[in-house]
């Protein structure tokens, strides 16, 4: 099929799809008039039942925790897939080590190097306070994975394979994923239902409160940081392989 025919067909099909969707959304509740009831129910029961005011964290890690378990396994599987795809390529090339790359400027090295520590601290803060403030395991984990990129920008050649760090990143990711799964099973054992909040709830607003929610945040934060760092490291290594030696 030629490009022109394909574009025309796509435009026709998209016009039909667009018209259908416009008709569909015209009948939704007007913007700003959320009809409920699920959000309202959660707003009523969460502070009393889970001792936290962070409704989104309570939804993600507790009331709808089973979805998060599946989502987390998607992340785990996708990271494994990325590594498998990119590693195959490396073996084909038969290159044991990456070629040197030109040194970055002094500014990049200074700022990148100086920011690695604070970024890791910020990631830990966002993860640990996920049941009190906006944030949590997913966002904090991505921030933590970003620290690796900063190290790369600062001129560290990310030759992780040689020092075995990729294996470590894989373990970190697996520990995080397994930790959340263990939390789910812990609920099953301790309270009779998967992901049941079986840890003492503590006082609302304190760091140690809300039962399993902060624990789940930490497990997910570890997993996401490991997965992001692993994927980024594999892609960076690809970039190094692509450069002419």
């Amino acid at each position, binding site marked *: 099929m030629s*490009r022109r025919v*394909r*574009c025309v067909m*796509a*435009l026709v099909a*998209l016009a039909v*799809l*667009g018209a259908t*969707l*416009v008709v569909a*959304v*015209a009948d*939704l*509740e*007007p*913007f*700003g*008039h*959320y009809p*409920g009831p*699920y*959000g309202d129910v*959660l*707003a009523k029961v969460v*502070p009393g039942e889970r001792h936290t*005011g*962070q*409704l*989104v964290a*309570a*939804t*993600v890690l507790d009331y*709808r925790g089973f*979805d*998060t378990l599946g*989502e987390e396994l*998607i*992340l785990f599987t*996708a*990271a494994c*897939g*990325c590594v498998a*795809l*990119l590693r*195959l*390529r490396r073996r*084909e090339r038969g290159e044991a080590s990456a070629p040197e790359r030109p040194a970055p400027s002094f500014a990049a090295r200074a700022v990148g190097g100086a920011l690695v520590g604070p970024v890791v601290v910020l990631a830990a803060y966002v993860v640990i306070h996920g049941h*009190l*403030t*906006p944030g949590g395991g*997913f966002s904090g984990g991505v921030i933590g994975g970003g620290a690796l990129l900063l190290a790369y920008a600062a001129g560290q050649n990310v030759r992780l394979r040689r020092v075995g760090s990729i294996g470590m990143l894989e373990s970190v990711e697996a520990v995080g994923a397994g930790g959340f799964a263990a939390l789910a099973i812990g609920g099953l054992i301790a309270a009779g239902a998967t992901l049941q909040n079986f840890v003492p709830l503590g006082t609302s*607003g304190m760091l140690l409160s809300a039962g399993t929610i902060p624990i789940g945040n930490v497990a997910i934060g570890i997993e*996401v940081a490991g*997965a992001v760092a692993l*994927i980024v490291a*594999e*892609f960076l290594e*690809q970039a190094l392989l692509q450069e002419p030696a």
Partner: protein
Amino acid sequence: MSVLAYLVAVWLLIAGIYGVVTSRHLVHLVICLGVAQASTYVLLLAIGYRSGAQAPIFGDIPQSTPVVDPVVQALTLTDVVVSATVSALLLALAVQAHKRFGSVDPDELNALRG
């Protein structure tokens, strides 16, 4: 005006799919898919929005304050994570396709080579 936010979601979906269909570069294709996926964030958050309401976090606000729907926000969080992983996987496939075929134009990847 009451459906404008929903129409933005429809527009993002249409524009994203059109970009995927007409793309000449695999990385461009993945970005277009990201645009199409962004429509779901807009739609979900627009459905849960409530005029004049606060973010669904009772830290500094009394519990009687009206808040927007936390369920769709949680769904959006799931959505963002899944779309990010899909993008990573597709980009890894693009790297492989470039290696296999020496091209990142989707039109040149269709030939069966024996």
